[in-house]
């Protein structure tokens, strides 16, 4: 007979399972400087690669002379497109169905494009030699304006496909056209607009920005000529995708490619794609027979690897005069730069942009997106958001404010009137998405009460009056945003990457002593996966989280997965983890029944053990059952205790939230101060509140950066003007406000543990909340839309335009 045991609560607490603020496992190494990032890697005989890049945004290359570069002491080889052609790698396929130059082939299409790759004994020699590659250019006319890309006579960006009438996503309208993509019922929507009491229309631009993780993109390629095997370490958010794509491009059999993503210093979407640096390092290692390291510098990072956004969204709403929305129309021009290297699920050239109806009950809607080529860097990644979801949320949340202003309604009241009601879930939107669950009105009301919204509006009214009387030069803005995300790609019926269904995976092995390891197809870049996946397992299996190791990022050991982006780790691999646990638990139950000499059905689960129903003193703990699985399994049962699950989610998850921002702006200087920012999030079941709050703080700070200052800007000649941290705004501790976080819990009904994902919500909801606050501050002076980013200069300029400077 087993001894009397601690109470249920005491036992549960010891597990450190779901819901507890478990301290992070990863931190032990990070706070001691013992993380293992790509640039920390040092292999014997390792070489270093560096790029020669184009100073021109658009030019024909007439000559490349590598003689001087090759003569620099320490230089081993110089790659150009002509060299890459000998192995058929001058171009590579993109995730979006386009092709992209690895090294400039005949011409350059954007500034800082890769022209030659120098390989040398150390990084200094490589940098010296890269400067000595002599390239002769003939400048060509440049276009960096997406709205002019499809004009008659616009410069031809892509000569390679100039005459191609069909693109990867259907017919092309113009030689600079990438794709047209639409959703919804155009005729019905147009009819609604023709009859509506009130309509609004605004060109809402989400500028080109960059995720800018603190660690840039980098890799080490090591080709073993004897075995014919490639090992590739790199900053990969999706290691298995890199392996498969790498195999398809290089023709090295996939089982002979080993991809390893060690610790990653932030990703935010920047590290999803495949870049020239990776391909050149692989080729260089094959050519030289030595390991080759490539590390991007910050300017290269900001100007070449994967921008985000650059969506120009003409957004219209139709409503009744008492404030009920009737229809939404949005025509978008998407600037993809010189190559469509968008990181979307392959069938979705505009991502999940059709989430644009947001949190509101729109009876009709229609969206059309035209992708275009310009002389800008390729990319189009989801910077801390699911594919194009932040663009959609920004458009709808700005448009809702613009309509509220036209109707003379309070923006919160206008939203409340149109929010999808709790009883409407599962809710099918006009653009075809089935929202899993939500309780929007409760969330909005809690948010408004928490900030005492009525008092804020009363204060604002007084201040507006004082401003008009000339007693103050400060205006006050209150920004409200209510967002719905679509994350966790994805159901394989909706989503694939180059044909690979977007499932994800977890493999769990429980060792004889009751500890274990879980390996997954996702890859943390700071999200704390080693901590949180173990919490799911602790709750599901009743083993302490401290006894579970979590391993990601090694394609040899991890089951196949599509990686971490689009808030998909918890919705997909979190589900896979729970499902794998349940397989293990089912087997453990059979072992317990055998040991306790009862039928399976006579047992019940109790935190960390199976006990006999009605006789709780007869039980077997999971730790005991782990030992038994390797020691005394029932006759006919396989020994061992492990399981693998590939989880193909039945639907996306739809996290939501209500954010409120209060801002004070000095109209004479344009200087703004965030007085208060309140964020209420509903991500369903909460696995680790400490980590959730951390994700929110970080995401809100990124949203603050985007809304208040970030932009990758080009001049008319295609020079990128914001490619260093001197020019590209990353918030410091000084200007970053304090964040107030709050929550409601509406579990996802289709997810095994009800979790929806949290990492990207603050970016999606934060940007419109900031922008709405700035716009709200000036609305009483007749302004309807001031474009992002709201830096001091632009805010001052907006005040100037409104005639506030006398």
């Amino acid at each position, binding site marked *: 007979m087993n001894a009397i045991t601690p109470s249920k609560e005491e036992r549960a607490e010891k597990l450190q399972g779901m819901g507890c603020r478990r301290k992070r496992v990863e931190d032990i190494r990070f*706070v*001691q*400087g013992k993380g293992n990032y790509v640039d920390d890697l040092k292999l014997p005989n390792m070489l270093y690669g560096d790029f020669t890049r184009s100073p021109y945004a658009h030019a024909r290359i007439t000559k490349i002379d590598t003689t001087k570069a090759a003569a620099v002491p320490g230089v081993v080889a110089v790659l150009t497109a002509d060299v890459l052609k000998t192995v058929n790698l001058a171009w590579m396929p993109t995730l979006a169905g386009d092709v992209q130059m690895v090294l400039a082939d005949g011409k350059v299409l954007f500034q800082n494009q890769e022209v030659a790759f120098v390989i040398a004994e150390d990084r200094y020699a490589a940098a010296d030699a890269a400067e000595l590659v002599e390239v002769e250019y003939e400048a060509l006319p440049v276009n960096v304006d997406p709205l002019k890309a499809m004009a008659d006579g616009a410069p031809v960006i892509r000569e390679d496909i100039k005459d191609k009438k069909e693109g990867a996503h259907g017919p092309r309208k113009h030689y600079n056209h990438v794709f047209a993509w639409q959703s919804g019922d155009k005729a019905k929507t147009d009819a609604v607009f023709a009859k509506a009491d009130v309509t609004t229309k605004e060109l809402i631009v989400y500028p080109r920005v960059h995720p800018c*993780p603190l*660690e840039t993109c980098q890799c080490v390629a090591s080709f073993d000529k004897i075995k014919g095997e490639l090992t590739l370490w790199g900053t990969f958010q999706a290691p298995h995708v890199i392996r498969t794509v790498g195999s398809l491009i290089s023709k090295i059999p996939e089982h002979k490619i080993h991809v390893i993503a060690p610790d990653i210093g932030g990703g935010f979407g920047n590290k999803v794609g495949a870049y020239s640096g990776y391909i050149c390092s692989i080729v260089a290692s094959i050519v030289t027979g030595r390991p080759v390291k490539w590390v991007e510098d910050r300017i290269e990072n900001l100007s070449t690897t994967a921008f985000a956004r650059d969506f120009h969204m003409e957004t219209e709403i139709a409503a009744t005069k008492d404030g009920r929305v009737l229809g939404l129309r949005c025509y978008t021009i998407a600037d993809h730069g010189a190559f469509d290297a968008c990181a979307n699920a392959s069938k979705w050239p505009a991502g999940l942009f059709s989430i644009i109806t947001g949190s509101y009950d729109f009876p009709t809607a229609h969206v059309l997106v035209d992708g275009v080529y310009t002389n800008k860097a390729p990319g189009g990644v989801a910077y801390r958001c699911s594919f194009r979801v932040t663009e959609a949320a920004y458009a709808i949340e700005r448009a809702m404010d613009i309509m509220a202003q036209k109707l003379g309604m309070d923006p919160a009241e206008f939203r409340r009137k149109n929010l999808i009601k709790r009883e409407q879930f599962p809710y099918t939107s006009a653009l075809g998405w089935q929202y899993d669950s939500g309780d929007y009105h409760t969330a909005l009301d809690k948010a408004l009460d928490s900030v005492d919204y009525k008092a804020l509006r009363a204060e604002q009214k007084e201040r507006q009056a004082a401003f008009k009387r000339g007693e103050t030069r400060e205006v006050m803005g209150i920004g409200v945003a209510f967002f719905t995300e679509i994350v966790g790609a994805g159901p394989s019926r909706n989503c694939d990457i180059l044909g690979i269904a977007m499932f994800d995976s977890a493999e769990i092995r429980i060792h004889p002593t009751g500890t274990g390891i879980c390996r997954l197809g996702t890859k943390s870049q700071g999200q704390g996966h080693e901590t949180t996946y173990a919490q799911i397992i602790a709750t599901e299996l009743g083993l302490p989280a401290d006894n579970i190791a979590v391993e990601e990022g090694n394609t040899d050991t991890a089951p196949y997965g599509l990686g971490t982006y689009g808030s998909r780790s918890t919705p997909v691999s979190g589900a896979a983890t729970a499902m794998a646990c349940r397989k293990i638990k089912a087997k453990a139950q059979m072992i317990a029944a055998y040991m306790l000499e009862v039928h399976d059905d006579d047992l019940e689960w109790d935190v960390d053990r199976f006990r006999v129903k009605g006789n709780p003193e007869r039980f077997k703990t999971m730790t005991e059952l782990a030992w038994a699985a390797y020691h005394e399994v029932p006759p006919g049962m396989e020994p061992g205790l492990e399981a693998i699950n590939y989880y193909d989610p039945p639907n996306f998850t739809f996290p939501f939230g209500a954010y409120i921002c209060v801002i004070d702006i000095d109209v004479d200087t344009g200087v703004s101060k965030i007085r208060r920012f309140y964020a209420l999030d509903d991500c369903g079941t909460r696995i680790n509140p400490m980590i959730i709050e*951390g994700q929110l703080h970080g995401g809100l700070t990124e949203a603050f950066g985007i809304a208040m200052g970030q932009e990758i800007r080009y001049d008319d000649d295609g020079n990128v003007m914001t490619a260093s941290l001197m020019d590209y705004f990353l918030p410091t501790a000084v200007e970053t406000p304090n964040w107030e976080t709050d929550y409601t819990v509406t579990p996802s009904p289709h997810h095994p543990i009800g979790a929806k994902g949290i990492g990207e919500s603050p970016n999606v909801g934060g940007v419109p909340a900031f922008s709405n606050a700035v716009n709200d501050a000036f609305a009483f002076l007749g302004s309807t839309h001031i474009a992002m980013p709201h830096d001091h200069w632009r805010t001052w300029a907006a005040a100037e335009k409104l005639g506030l400077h006398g």
Partner: protein
Amino acid sequence: MAKSHVTMTVNGKTVEALVEPRTLLIHFLREQLNLTGPHIGCETSHCGACTVDLNGRSVKSCTVFAVQAEGGDLRTIEGMAAADGTLHALQEGFREMHGLQCGFCTPGMITRAYRLLQENPSPSEEEIRFGIAGNLCRCTGYQNIVKAIQYAADKLSGAAKEAAE
């Protein structure tokens, strides 16, 4: 390129080496001494991931030549814990208060905070925010970093008081 001879104290130990005169201190630390705690985030002194402590000042080692550290007394994140492995109050505080996520800025941030607390043992929130403004973090939004530094300041001043009593 002719090499220069340098001698300096790094984390309490004397090191001697030959370096190219143009070798940056961060590359010397990371590649010659294998101290990979300090990181490279920008190479332009903006991000602070490479912050080390040199002669009692926080220095961004990506824009200092190794030869400029000649004869210097240098401390990196690797020299922050006690000899017996006990974590420094700052290292403990960063974990306790969730002051890090990806960990890339953390070594520089802790090294900077170390000097800040040497100069001002009980800083206000505003002083902390100003004091770490040269160190960028893309993950945490700084709120918990501020708390982590306050945690360390409290712990260190508590220990100092105890020692005085």
